């Protein structure tokens, strides 16, 4: 799961001047098929990628792999080759549209709106418009696929089309697959205060979905994600104390019990993101026992989000520091 606060994350292969993290971040989050997909596309082999995607049927998995196809710096040549090489196909348009979202955020940077330059905004909007066109066509070509709709939730937020339009798109996505992981996480971002929603709205949504989600679903991570957004909006002491507050810690524990700590939780591609989110909350709340359990589950599969909120250009460094500290306190 990306697109939370893109641009802040470390990209060691791209920017030599940045400090090398001691731990590389694997975009595929340890998934072998995802790693193969990345390798094929790095070599420009889109037919192989096309074939691989064709064998994926689970909507959450499909979204995860489309993310991996799309998240490249700049604009690789094979994107247009893929579109030209598979006329009438929905997947290449989906990839091109999704890539345009990542590409748009690359132009915008991760700063809050008031700190973003006008030219950057114009490029941002232009690329998002391009994304919308491609995603709308992808949705028309594959009417049963929730994936374009999940991405349209994200572009809607960037284009500031309003919360009602975002909900409409979200409902299109979850109408096709009720527990769509990425659509839910993107909707949470869109309902957050920094994107024109409010803390109240975000928490109402996160708690409602989390309560309805089947046991062992990753969706209760929405509660942790909402608390992370709330924490991010605070300053100084309030921020330091936030995850230590008993009522907040209790709510995060309950959410973990219903998802990552539940016996029915599946290690589906992209699973480390939920564990990273819970580890983050527990580590900042200095609940070392709970944090350790998550760090052990994660191993080295660190994700950018939410660690980039602690260190924009070195999320893996922040992850390592907290993991070390946790291990130190728990022997």
């Amino acid at each position, binding site marked *: 799961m990306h697109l939370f606060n893109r641009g802040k994350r470390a990209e060691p292969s791209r920017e030599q001047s940045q400090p090398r993290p001691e731990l590389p971040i694997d975009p595929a989050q340890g998934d072998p098929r995802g790693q193969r997909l990345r390798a094929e596309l790095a070599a420009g082999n889109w037919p192989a990628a096309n074939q691989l995607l064709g064998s994926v049927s689970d909507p959450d998995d499909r979204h995860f792999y489309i993310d991996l196809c799309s998240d490249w710096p700049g604009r690789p040549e094979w994107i247009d080759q893929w579109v030209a090489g598979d006329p009438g196909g929905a997947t290449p348009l989906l990839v091109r549209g999704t890539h345009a979202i990542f590409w748009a955020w690359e132009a915008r940077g991760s700063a809050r709106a008031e700190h973003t330059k006008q030219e950057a905004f114009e490029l941002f909007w232009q690329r998002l418009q391009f994304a919308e066109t491609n995603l709308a066509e992808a949705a028309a070509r594959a009417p049963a696929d929730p994936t374009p709709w999940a991405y349209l939730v994200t572009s809607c937020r960037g284009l500031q*089309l*309003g*919360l*009602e*339009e975002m*909900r409409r798109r979200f409902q299109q996505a979850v109408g096709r697959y009720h527990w769509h992981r990425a659509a839910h996480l993107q909707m949470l971002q869109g*309902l957050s*205060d920094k994107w*024109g*929603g*409010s803390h*109240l*709205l975000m928490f*109402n*949504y996160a708690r409602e979905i989390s309560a309805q989600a089947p046991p062992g679903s990753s969706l209760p991570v929405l509660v942790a994600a909402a608390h992370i957004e709330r924490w991010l909006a605070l300053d100084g002491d309030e921020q330091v104390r936030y995850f230590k507050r008993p009522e907040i810690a209790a709510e995060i524990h309950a959410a973990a019990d219903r998802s990552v700590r539940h016996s029915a939780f599946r290690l589906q591609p992209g699973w480390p993101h939920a564990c990273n989110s819970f580890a983050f909350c527990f580590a900042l709340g200095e609940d070392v026992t709970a944090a350790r359990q998550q760090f052990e589950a994660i191993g080295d599969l660190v994700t950018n989000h939410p660690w980039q909120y602690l260190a924009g250009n070195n999320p893996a460094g922040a992850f390592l520091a907290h993991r070390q500290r946790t291990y130190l306190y728990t022997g």
Partner: protein
Amino acid sequence: MVALGLLVGFYVLAFGIVVAIALIVIWGLRSGHLRVQYVGLVLVAIAILRGVLFLDRDHDRLPPVRIQLRPEQEPTLWTEVGSVAAAVRAPRPQVLYLVHDVNAFVYQESRLLGLRPGRMVLGIGVGLLTVLRVDELRAVLAHEFGHLSSGDTRLGPVVYRAQESIQRTITHLKDNLVGKLFAGYLRLFMGLTMNISRRQELAADINAVRLGGQAATIQALQAVAVTGGAFELLLSQYVAPLWESGAWPADLYGGLRSLCAEPARAGELDAMRAALLAEPTDPWDSHPALAERLRFIASLPPGPTRLDPRPARTLLADPDGSERRMAEQLSALATDGQARTPVSWEQAAQQVYRSLLQQRATALASAGMAVGGDWRRRGLEQALELLEADRGEALARRLVPDLEQAPAEERARLTGQVLRNYLRAAVATELAGRPGVRWVASWAGLAGVVGVHGAGQQLEELVDAALAGPQGVDALRRELGLEWAGV
């Protein structure tokens, strides 16, 4: 005389400093003591010279958008101007400009650092002709010529130019010691001359009443003051979005007339008038406050009562054509030539305002959802519930975060304005979605809607009622067929 003395004093001071600096630099060069610090002194001298020598640029004072009117093109207006000048024994102006705003001015060009008089120049704003009647215009012109006949425009420009010149010198000098010296001089100068200027204004009002009559003068003064505000509102709310989209309003001044006559704007315009009347006379202001002038005028003998109710714009040979040319020129200047397409107000409503209102409707829905907190229900429904629960301020702060910075005494009024703007947009957008209803130009807000059963009038009534209290909210909800989640 005092002003003249001070003006001469200013030049003596300015040139004195320049000469002193020159001497210091020359001494430095001769004796070999020249240091880097001297560069600063030279810069100060240059700043003073720049401030002083710009003095003769008359074109700096003219409004950038102007159309020169020759007697053969505009015989009626020239005759009117000439007869007013003759009646108050003022020299007939030699140059007449039409300018864009709601104002009139008269001044004398100057030669020789403001000491020798030049041609008489009269400027009349199209905005003024747009709203005044002929007798009211006469009063305004008589007032302006009053400055000429009492001989004070010769001194007037001297005073004005000296102020400008000192001010400009201070700006060039920024905040250094010499700058402070000039600032002190300016305060002294203003203190002495402002009183003179204000007395001249009142004397000019005597002229206005003598020629235009008391009623027309009072009416003209108020109209000018309020229309100025209305024109600003028109430019910022109606015209700026057109300019941004590359269009310009072909009937700009017709829009101003409609805006001033719109019943739904009466409250806003009255508030402007009240605010102007409440302004005290500032010792640094060359004009006495409006209230002071009105009181003074009311104390004068009533003057002629024969009225001339023709619109002042009919004095122009081709009023529509002149207004259109002015609108085009103003738009070209304001947009650097980017606004090329003339549009009617109806076209503006269809093509530009409609989408602005839809954006506001979207923003209100998002704010309603954000403050109401229910992600499943319509934002407008939640916004109405907030209004009903007297939580409109929270809603308005979401829509315009800057409201928090507004001074406490202004906040309630601004909050009301924000809520009205957005709610009106949302209701119009809802109604426009109905079959047979379409967007039209509206002076109550950017655009309105008309359709079956007079949806246009309904719009303003529905919005006003909803902002007045829970019953109105309920009526609006029923009209729009919205759900209510209340108990």
